[in-house]
């Protein structure tokens, strides 16, 4: 025998009348904190402070302390000269692939699998994602995320989503791969499509953030502004043109909790484990592929063919073809490679934005495919349009501002 929903609620009421007694509810410090962080008047300043704090810790720990303070010295001062001298076959193609430029004096420019590859993976990206995931786990376990969702709900409604879209969006700042799966908490196909497309195009992953704040610390703010603006601009358009519904939701805000060190460390271990298993091999492999394409002359040929488009439409040098190919494997690698190309500050900003909104990395691509090929095709169509329109628009903005 099964009941209708009404009969079931009736039965539940009877049961709970018999077994549950409510005594006086005490207002605790936890509840007070909970309200302060969710009411707009106090919640929005607190949210800005939290996000600012997040970013400061991220950039000072990963960039200043680990990468500049330790790994740059280790790699450029000791490892690079050592491997340049002991690796056999200087001048040969094997040496070029694994060590790169024998005259390079830093690991960004050498571009060998064992020099730039290892340096980017271990020296730049590892500290970045370590600190990102540590802080992320803290925010998650304390229970701050749903409060952020409540605060940002109104803005997300403008792009056909609701507050909970903050969960995949912030996860994507770590890595786009789990973020694609996390879009399942959204209710309708329309919402999931908008979310997946936006995050694949506009949200840079932790690895990319780490490398960006290492190689273009002075312009990362502008790059992020372009990405955030694009996220909402194209979200707004997608919401208008995608058929389907965007329902309201009631957000369940759980109580604050003291984070458990055990849980945090386990999460960190799992996520870093994933980085070593998937990301590191891709960085090294990507480095090798790009070097092979250089050696075989493919990249020079592509650069010649595509220069009119790259320079004419986007205003960036033809050499950016190499990084754009690498971007398909790993975005962090691509940004590292860009830093070795000579160009103006504005061209650099445009090309970093291009690398970000350009095709999602292979791992994200596979995840999107798993969620359905029709969605993937749709996302790709949006992506190609966005690259040309938005990339071109940025070039136009520079031209109008009179900078090159």
């Amino acid at each position: 025998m099964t009941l209708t929903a009404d009969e079931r609620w009736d039965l539940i009421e009877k049961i709970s009348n018999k077994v549950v007694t409510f005594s006086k509810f005490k207002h605790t410090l936890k509840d007070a904190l909970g309200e302060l962080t969710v009411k707009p008047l106090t919640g929005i300043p607190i949210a800005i402070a939290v996000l600012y704090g997040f970013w400061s810790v991220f950039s000072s720990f990963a960039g200043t302390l680990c990468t500049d303070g330790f790994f740059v010295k280790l790699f450029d001062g000791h490892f690079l000269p050592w491997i340049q001298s002991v690796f056999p076959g200087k001048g040969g193609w094997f040496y070029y692939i694994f060590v790169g430029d024998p005259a390079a004096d830093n690991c960004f420019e050498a571009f060998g699998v064992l020099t730039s590859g290892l340096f980017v993976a271990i020296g730049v990206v590892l500290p970045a994602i370590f600190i990102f995931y540590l802080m992320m786990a803290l925010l998650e376990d304390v229970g701050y995320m749903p409060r952020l969702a409540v605060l940002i709900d109104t803005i997300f409604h403008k792009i056909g989503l609701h507050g909970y879209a903050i969960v995949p969006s912030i996860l994507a700042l770590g890595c786009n791969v789990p973020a694609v799966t996390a879009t399942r908490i959204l209710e309708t196909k329309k919402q999931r499509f908008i979310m997946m497309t936006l995050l694949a195009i506009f949200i840079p992953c932790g690895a990319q953030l780490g490398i960006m704040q290492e190689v273009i610390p002075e312009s990362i703010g502008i790059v992020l502004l372009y990405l955030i603006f694009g996220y909402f601009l194209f979200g707004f358009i997608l919401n208008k043109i995608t058929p389907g519904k965007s329902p309201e939701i009631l957000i369940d805000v759980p109580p604050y909790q003291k984070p458990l060190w055990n849980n945090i460390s386990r999460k960190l271990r799992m996520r870093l484990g994933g980085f070593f298993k998937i990301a590191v091999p891709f960085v090294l492999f990507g480095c090798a592929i790009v070097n092979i394409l250089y050696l075989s002359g493919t990249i020079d040929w592509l650069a010649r063919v595509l220069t009119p488009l790259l320079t004419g439409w986007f205003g960036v040098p033809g050499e950016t073809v190499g990084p754009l190919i690498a971007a398909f494997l790993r975005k962090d690698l691509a940004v590292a490679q860009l830093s070795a190309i000579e160009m103006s500050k504005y061209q650099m900003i445009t090309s970093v934005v291009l690398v970000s909104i350009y095709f999602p990395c292979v791992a994200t691509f596979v995840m999107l495919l798993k969620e359905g090929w029709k969605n993937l095709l749709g996302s790709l169509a949006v992506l190609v349009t966005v690259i040309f329109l938005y990339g071109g628009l940025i070039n136009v903005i520079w031209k109008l501002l009179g900078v090159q």
Partner: protein
Amino acid sequence: MKKILLMGNPNVGKSVFFNRLTGANVIESNYPGTTVDYTKGYMKGNSEDFEIIDVPGTFSLEPKDKAEEVAVKMLEEKKDALVICVIDASKIERGLYLALEIIERGYPVVLALNMWDVAEDKNIQIDIEKLKSILNIPVVPTIAISGKGFKEVVLSIKKAASVGVKEIMEKVGEIK
């Protein structure tokens, strides 16, 4: 191998439960919707081994989003499974809604009243013995993050049997 589904509303601690029962590693967070796909793990019981499945959180068996669809599909595919229904002791009504739906479909259920400490903080008292006799299934208060009540959950697995909702309705009328 006997299958156990771990089901419940979003953000009631199913993943913490799962990690404790199986020693596996699934991500736990303090917001609804962390588990959107299912994960399998194994548990050694006293006399037999169990396969345990961490099912995404759902409010009812009429799915509203993709994660809930996964949950309902899991339940329908595993006709002979036992369900450990994890509910938030401080919001018992909405948990019972799902528990009743599962019971009505004929699955044997163990009911875990998780976040017992939160309910105590909020001064909510639940008469476990009464609830047990009304539902006629094992009911265990638990605190997943500290591990309280887990032994009892495991021990009561063999006591779970399917019950008719009609008996529950009769019982709730009789009991004082």
